[in-house]
């Protein structure tokens, strides 16, 4: 009874695991046919007994169907149908024919036509010959399949190959029995082999579950930014398919390339290789080329694809964010650069335009006043003097404005001169400690504007008696420090001036720090990396 029950149990297990696969019902059916045949033979009810004898070997046909359909649940070739058909002919119509001549000696045979031992014996011999032939074809078909498959598919073929041999042995045993010398050793080894089939199927299923566990590892593995080569290895490991390949869709068109960028042909449908596409928004981005047998567990490739998609998506998002960040960095640098360029232009325009005209106007007024003789109207003289004074004042204001817009002295004479000039203009007493070294223009400009803005804040908010500016080079960076002895309490986030400075310094990958404890002064420290000479670009002034 054991083989029957083990088939039934294994069949239902398989059915539960893979409801869409016909193998489960087929295997359960095999077990039930086996049990029913055995049970029928023990009955004393003639009809039941007859049915039991008739269908006693039908389970073998079921088993052959199972072996040939393993693991997909479908027969692959017409030849396989021939094998199943042969077995079916032997186990159903020929069995019935045999029964028609059989006398069981107890009158239970309800299909008995005429007792004829020779006819019964002849049919029986035909059955055994046909069946042995079928068994040979079965083993041949399975062996061929085993030979042609690789990796997981080959492993999966092992239990069915064992099953095929068991059936061949069974048929040989029947032949031997038919010719008069039954072998018990042979018989029991067949039993063992037949019982082994469900065990082997369970083993294969466990392997599949291990593959799923492998997928869990895969998710973890892929979490750590896989290189294409590592992705392939991880997939091959998780799926137990060393022949696995990953194809990436080339940027343009429908061609695929491997991880080395070499063109790669996706396999044809019937090649025993299967392709699992990884799609993003309906567009294939990569393909896993793997053993077709991996598709037998429908959840397996789906979860693998999910894991890889996740990794690829992560990677893509990372790359996208990186690219966007890079773009933002570049555009911020461009904005600052454009701003500086604009400031230079405005300063030059002021100089070439309004400033020149005011100079000209002042000179003209002075010239006019000089030409007045001593008899001239004193009111006119005063008026001309006032006009000249106004023009001079306007010129002074304009120069102040121009200095604020773009410090020409910075480009002309460098940072220390420019900072001195800022200190001169500050209403607070400022001590300056800046070396005479020159730095890349963008670094000098950033440092200058830090000092300028910081000193402006000192004058506006700090109520300080004095301030100090220190600029020094420290470990590849220019460190600009502006401190005062004022009231403190400044907030880098609140003042848009300081925040703008932070942005400006950040463009050069620098940092700005404001330390301003209430009542204990404020220190603004900017740290601006000095790019190595190869990276210095000198913008045209």
């Amino acid at each position, binding site marked *: 009874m054991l083989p029957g029950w083990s088939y039934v149990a294994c069949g239902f297990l398989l059915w539960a695991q893979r409801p869409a696969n016909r193998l489960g019902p087929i295997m359960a059916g095999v077990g039930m046919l086996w049990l029913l045949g055995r049970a029928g033979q023990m009955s004393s009810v003639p009809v039941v007994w007859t049915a039991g004898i008739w269908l006693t070997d039908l389970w073998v046909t079921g088993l052959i169907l199972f072996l040939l359909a393993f693991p997909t649940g479908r027969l692959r070739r017409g030849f396989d149908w021939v094998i199943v058909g042969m077995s079916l002919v032997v186990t159903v119509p020929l069995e019935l024919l045999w029964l028609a001549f059989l006398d069981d000696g107890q009158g239970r045979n309800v299909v008995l036509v005429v007792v004829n031992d020779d006819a019964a014996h002849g049919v029986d011999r035909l059955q055994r010959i046909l069946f042995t032939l079928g068994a040979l074809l079965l083993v041949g078909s399975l062996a061929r399949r085993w030979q042609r498959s690789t990796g997981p598919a080959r492993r999966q073929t092992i239990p069915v190959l064992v099953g095929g041999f068991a059936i061949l042995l069974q048929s040989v045993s029947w032949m031997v029995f038919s010719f008069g010398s039954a072998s018990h050793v042979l018989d029991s080894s067949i039993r063992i082999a037949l019982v082994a089939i469900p065990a082997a199927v369970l083993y294969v299923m466990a392997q599949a579950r291990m593959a799923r566990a492998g997928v869990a590892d895969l998710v973890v593995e892929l979490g750590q930014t896989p290189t294409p080569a590592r992705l392939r290895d991880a997939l091959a490991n998780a799926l137990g398919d060393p022949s696995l390949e990953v194809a990436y869709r080339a940027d343009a068109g429908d061609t695929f390339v491997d991880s080395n960028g070499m063109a790669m042909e996706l396999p044809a449908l019937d090649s025993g290789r299967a392709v699992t596409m990884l799609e993003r928004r309906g567009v294939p981005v990569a393909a896993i080329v793997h053993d077709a047998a991996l598709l037998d567990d429908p959840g397996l490739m789906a979860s693998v694809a999910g894991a890889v998609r996740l990794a690829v998506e992560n990677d893509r998002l990372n790359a996208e964010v990186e690219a966007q960040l890079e773009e933002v960095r570049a555009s911020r640098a461009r904005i600052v650069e454009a701003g500086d360029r604009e400031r230079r232009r405005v300063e030059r325009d002021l100089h070439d335009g309004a400033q020149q005209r005011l100079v000209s106007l002042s000179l003209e007024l002075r010239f006019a006043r000089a030409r007045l003789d001593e008899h001239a109207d004193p009111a006119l003289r005063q008026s001309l003097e006032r006009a000249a004074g106004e023009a001079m004042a306007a010129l002074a204001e304009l*120069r102040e404005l121009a200095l604020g817009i773009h410090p020409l002295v910075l480009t002309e004479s460098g940072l220390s001169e420019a900072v001195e000039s800022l200190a001169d203009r500050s209403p607070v007493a400022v001590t300056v400690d800046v070396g005479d070294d020159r730095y890349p223009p963008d670094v000098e400009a950033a440092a200058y504007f830090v000092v300028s803005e910081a000193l402006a804040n000192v004058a506006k908010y700090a109520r300080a008696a004095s301030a100090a500016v220190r600029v020094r080079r420290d470990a590849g960076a220019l460190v600009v420090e502006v401190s005062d002895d004022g009231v403190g309490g400044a907030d880098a986030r609140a003042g848009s001036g300081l925040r703008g400075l932070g942005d400006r310094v950040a463009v050069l990958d620098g940092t700005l720090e404001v330390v301003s404890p209430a009542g204990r002064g404020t220190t603004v420290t900017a740290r601006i990396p000095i790019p190595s000479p190869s990276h210095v670009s000198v913008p045209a002034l």
Partner: protein
Amino acid sequence: MWRATMAWMSTILIVDDDARFRAQATALLSADGFTVIGEADDGPSALAAAAALRPEYVLLDIGLAGVDGFAVAHALTADGEAPLVVLTSSRDARAFGRRLREVPSLGFLPKEQVSGAAIRALAADA
């Protein structure tokens, strides 16, 4: 008579790329007792004019196109019989800083303050 005139009439060369300023400066300085013996609108012609005319003073704009006023001042004062250079600009001195301090010259005058008296004051201080 000629020598007597020369005793107080100082000669000056005006170098600026702005014709209007050259005209105004010429008028103002002539009124203040200078003899404007030449004008130039860029560095090379300034050097040529200085070599040919041998002026006592050169009123030199810093913001010349091409070779700037600092370079011209250095070139003008390179040999022994150098003219006295007065630098000028429509920007003020703060725009130039150290370069202005280091250039060999009598000094700097913002353009609107250019006058014979101012130039003589610089010469007297030197």
